[in-house]
């Protein structure tokens, strides 16, 4: 028996960064807003104060802030020829659950994509010709430009108080920042963080090689900051417990530390936790609301004038498929759009050890480090190289805690007295460099509903079919070579190179940057949502998140997820409310 609730203006599915940003914007415009979050209520003082937060086993190993696979998971295979099997324990990525979503336990690496990222397909064809692109790629232009998104990147950075140094201020290239970034209207709200030893060595070595190192733009703040909503964040203490952890210092920008104090005071907003959306109800080309179940198992229908689907990538796609919205993608025919354009992140790394240097890896944060962007995107001629895309190369002082990080030089046994001696010597003297590589969408990488495995409510799990495209492996090997060259210039006593290879495996952690499947675009034949993240099929449904990416550039996605969410929120409050209907 479904209980029908009082209608509201807007219902939001998922209360991570996207949901919280939309909740703030729409409730500020006077709409009655209800957010449904499948996970639990979470806030700093109650859930991760400094006396509880630095617990590596609980958060980093047992994944306390991550959705439990028993509650929801996906199935996986590399290609259509295989049978997909369920991911029974998380590995390669960690989808969030709970108020604040991944915004609670992210690292805080806050990037803007470059202008050419949004026009990847047309720019690549213009520069290299149509035949340069492998025929099975399904990359697309985004239908939105960097210039259109710039005010929204700016707004998000100022909501968070991002620490960084501009490299391109209104077209003027500035020393110390990223010279390859798109022009920004103003400087970062707070100065860069103080750099520990390893990122400093990386910056020196990459400068020697002629590259342009700069501080990683960071949502772990270098100093206390009050945002435009009047919420004050604290300064980062470099505690080293960031990714997979909540911050006990109010120093990491999250929905909790930037938006929730304001939302809690608004009478026209309510957050319902432990409420799982089952389907988006619709008829006659219009969404009617959301059917959901709460912790007791009771089923409710929440009618709403606007439905905002702001769950994680996988659940956004699954809700569309379960609700029968949009044409499911068929890899055999290439027809359909829902589930198409799945992409990931092509990462690789180099570990390096120094007998005579104490690097103190326990001093860390989430987005603390130095980066070079010289080998990312189209900053270099790909013509002779035979691939497109690239990566940023970085030394990030992050995740230096000992359960998951206790490297030893190559050749050391895995246990026994010699391992103990090696780990005792190496822990303080080892660091890791990262290549954060792009991932192109292609015909064989997609999501659909699994025919065999179901969730606790009896609904089909989402099925992921994915492997790295040869273009991305070629790219990854190239940029990893550049990363190794910087590593050598740091003059370590030993180093090991971890290239990315096929087949893709869901076991080792790589990145929670799963994108696409509900891609945006200017052409409804190849996208699920328009440039305002409005469904092509239901004008009062918006599908918001990294699910909108048509492919993934070589950066972390959150800055762009937030910019797209804020871009959509302006389109809703300034245009849609006046004249409900298609915005494009």
């Amino acid at each position, binding site marked *: 028996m479904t209980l029908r609730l009082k209608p509201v203006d807007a219902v939001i599915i998922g209360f991570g960064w996207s949901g919280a940003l939309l909740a703030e914007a729409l409730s500020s415009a006077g709409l009655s807003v209800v957010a449904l979050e499948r996970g639990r209520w979470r806030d700093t003082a109650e859930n991760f104060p400094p*006396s509880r937060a*630095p617990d590596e086993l609980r958060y980093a190993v047992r994944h306390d802030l991550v959705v439990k696979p028993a509650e929801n998971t996906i199935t996986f295979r590399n290609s259509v020829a295989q049978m997909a*099997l369920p991911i029974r324990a998380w590995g390669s990525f960690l989808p969030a659950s709970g108020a604040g979503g991944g915004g609670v336990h992210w690292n805080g690496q806050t990037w803007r994509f470059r202008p050419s990222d949004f026009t990847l397909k047309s720019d690549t064809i213009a520069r290299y010709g149509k035949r340069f692109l492998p025929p099975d790629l399904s990359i697309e232009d985004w239908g939105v430009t960097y210039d259109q998104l710039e005010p929204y990147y700016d707004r998000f950075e100022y909501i968070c108080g991002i620490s960084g140094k501009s490299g391109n201020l209104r077209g003027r290239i500035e020393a110390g920042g990223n010279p390859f970034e798109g022009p920004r209207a103003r400087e970062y709200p707070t100065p860069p963080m103080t750099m*520990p030893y390893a990122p400093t060595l990386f910056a020196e070595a990459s400068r020697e090689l002629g590259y342009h190192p700069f501080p990683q733009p960071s949502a772990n703040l270098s100093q206390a900051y009050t945002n435009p909503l009047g919420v004050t964040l604290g300064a980062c203490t470099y505690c080293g417990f960031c990714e997979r952890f909540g911050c006990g210092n109010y120093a990491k920008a999250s929905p909790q530390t930037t938006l929730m104090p304001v939302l809690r005071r608004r009478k026209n907003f309510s957050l319902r936790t432990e409420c799982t959306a089952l389907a988006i109800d619709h008829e006659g080309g219009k969404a009617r609301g959301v059917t959901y179940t709460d912790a007791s198992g009771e089923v409710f229908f929440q009618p709403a004038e606007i439905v905002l689907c702001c769950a994680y990538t996988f659940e956004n796609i699954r809700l569309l498929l379960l609700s029968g919205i949009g044409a499911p993608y068929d890899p055999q025919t290439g027809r359909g759009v829902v589930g198409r354009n799945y992409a990931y992140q092509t990462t690789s790394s180099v570990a390096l050890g120094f007998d005579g240097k104490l690097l103190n890896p326990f001093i860390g944060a989430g987005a603390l480090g130095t980066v070079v962007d010289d080998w990312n995107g189209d900053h270099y001629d790909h013509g002779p190289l035979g691939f497109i895309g690239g990566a940023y190369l970085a030394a990030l002082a992050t995740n230096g805690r000992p359960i998951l990080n206790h490297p030893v030089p190559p050749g050391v046994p895995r246990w026994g007295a010699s391992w103990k001696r090696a780990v005792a010597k190496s822990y303080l003297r080892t660091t890791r460099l990262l290549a954060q590589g792009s991932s192109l969408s292609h015909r064989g990488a997609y999501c659909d509903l699994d025919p065999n495995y179901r969730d606790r409510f009896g609904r089909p799990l989402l099925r992921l079919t994915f492997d790295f495209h040869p273009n991305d492996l070629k790219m990854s090997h190239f940029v990893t070579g550049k990363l190794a060259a910087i590593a050598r210039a740091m003059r370590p006593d030993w180093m090991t190179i971890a290239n990315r290879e096929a087949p893709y495996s869901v076991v080792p952690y790589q990145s929670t940057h799963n994108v696409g499947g509900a891609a945006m675009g200017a052409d409804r034949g190849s996208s699920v949502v328009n440039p305002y993240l409005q469904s092509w099929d239901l004008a009062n449904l918006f599908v918001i998140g990294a699910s909108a990416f048509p492919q993934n550039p070589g950066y972390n996605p959150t800055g762009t997820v937030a910019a797209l969410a804020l871009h959509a929120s302006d389109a809703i409050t300034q245009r849609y409310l006046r004249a409900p209907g298609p915005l494009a």
Partner: protein
Amino acid sequence: MKRREWLASVAAIAFTGCAAPAPPSPLRFFTPEEAATITAIADRLIPTDDLGPGAGEAGAATFIDRELAGPYGTSRDLYMRPPFLPGLPGQGPQSPATPAARYRAGLAALDAHCRAAFAGRGFADLAPPLQDRMLADLEGGRILRNDGGRAFFDLVLRDTIDGFFADPAYGGNRGMAGWRLIGFPGARYDYRDFVARHGEVYPEPPVALA
């Protein structure tokens, strides 16, 4: 008191605490025999030596016992719906066996193998060099091959290291032995005054949550 003396006294207190006999903690999952075997294995994986206590002495059996009695041991939070089908390595573990069941079976198989090979002596009763050989054979897939011996070795090694480096509240890093070994300051949570002091020895002793 000068700072240096104060630090020395803090260290002395810590080491005294470490050397005091630990109160016996009631077992929640293991039998006493199983716990003795785990302690013996952990003592070979991370042995006590001139660098400090090994994993057995630091409480590996207590840590693993408590973990196996909780959600980790029963796979409570994992997706455990059938069908359980063999997959490719890249699809991740697909076994219905929980860690608790794997320990129970793995320890029994290891002990049975030792008793058959060494005149009735179980693993815990073997001399350390022989224990090392058994563990190397388990790791290398030379014994208990059909009983998942290699995967069992990997499981025990991972759990032992997890416990050795986890917060002492979990029982496997008694006296912060694992953290002292490598120089990890634990739950200090604030390095603002040290982040720019490149290459220096961090002077404060580690702290734990509880």
